[in-house]
């Protein structure tokens, strides 16, 4: 929390999404302050068979990033497990925008997308939304993305759907810039 005190941010962007998708990685990639986090060694790595995922966010991660004009934005990584619903109720309404990170290469990507959009809709957190797909090439065809666009379209008329790499600072910054700047769901006339 020491890193947070004294910093004034006008906006806050929440990173949400399923367990292991790269929310914490993304936040750490771009934060220009030491990330405040509450990680524990994850037992779920053994259960879910994800040897690359050795920790999990049990509280939330907090970092910050400055736009080119000096404006600072707070970045919050929200835990992805279902048992942290109370955390979602706390963090999502406070966020200016949301980046929903999803595994782009999984067969259940559409189902996952719908599940998380329901979560966001229940907390009135759809207005400024970006859906970021990991593990896909940047030149993935629009046809391949269309099933997800169709699902997103039911919740938000034109929320951005982009491919992104949580390990790439430029890619993560792009998602944040778009999330902060995208017109609200009701703003498309």
């Amino acid at each position, binding site marked *: 929390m020491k890193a947070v005190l004294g910093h004034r941010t006008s906006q806050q962007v929440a990173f949400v999404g399923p367990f292991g998708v790269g929310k914490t990685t993304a936040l750490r990639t771009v934060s220009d302050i030491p990330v405040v986090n509450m990680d524990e060694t994850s037992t779920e790595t053994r259960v879910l068979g994800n040897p690359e995922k050795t920790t999990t966010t049990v509280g939330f991660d907090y970092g910050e990033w400055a736009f080119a004009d000096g404006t600072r934005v707070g970045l919050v990584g929200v835990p992805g497990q279902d048992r942290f619903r109370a955390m979602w109720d706390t963090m999502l309404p406070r966020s200016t925008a949301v980046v929903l990170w999803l595994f782009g290469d999984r067969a259940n990507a559409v189902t996952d997308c719908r599940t998380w959009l329901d979560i966001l809709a229940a907390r009135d957190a759809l207005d400024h939304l970006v859906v970021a797909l990991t593990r896909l090439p940047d030149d993935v065809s629009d046809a391949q993305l269309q099933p997800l666009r169709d699902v997103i379209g039911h919740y938000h008329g034109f929320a951005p759907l982009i491919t992104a790499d949580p390990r790439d600072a*430029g890619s993560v910054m792009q998602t944040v810039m778009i999330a902060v700047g995208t017109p609200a769901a009701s703003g498309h006339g």
Partner: protein
Amino acid sequence: MTDGRSVKVWVSSLRWQAVRVLARQIQVADVDFAWALAADEASVWIIDGTAVDAGADLSTHYARLLRRPRVAYLAATPTASPPHPDWTLFTSPVDDGEVERWLGLTRAAEQPWCNGLLRLQQWPNLARYGVHGRDGRLIAACMQLLTAPIDYQTLLADGVTAAALDTLLADAWASGLLIVNCADAAVAEAVNSGLNTPIDAARRARLFDHIAVRSAAQ
């Protein structure tokens, strides 16, 4: 009129001198000119209307193309009728001004976003544009395009690079994500004549709706 992109011209036959003359007129009309070896590679066709049966076969082929060229149908008499309604009839000798106006419409069909007001229906995947996609100015341009109709020159005036914007708009147009509202009915028709996909049909309807509204208002 040139903007760095070439006009690729395919000619059905060079037998008739009038065809060669028209090709020369296009070449000198301040455009980047290149010959296309195959009809499908061309953005402009010059068809010798005096050649027996050439028009009918080409009309059939033209109708099947997803992206249609602009077609100059050169006939011997002004009473001739091009085999396809989208083709433009020329009779020899062709006036230089007539060629320039027709090429202007060709440009409009190739870069429809340069004419009229633009609107994006959804965000493109900006990740596919590399560093340009991470440029705040291109992101801001997309935000403007999503919020309210805006013209191409205004977008450029806000600082986004033309190359990046053209690439994004070309992709959006090809994907059916870009709506272009042309105030000029002739330009709208030129743009519309190049469309031939299911997505294009919906876009064509929006173009015609706009034209109808403006016609009623005038």
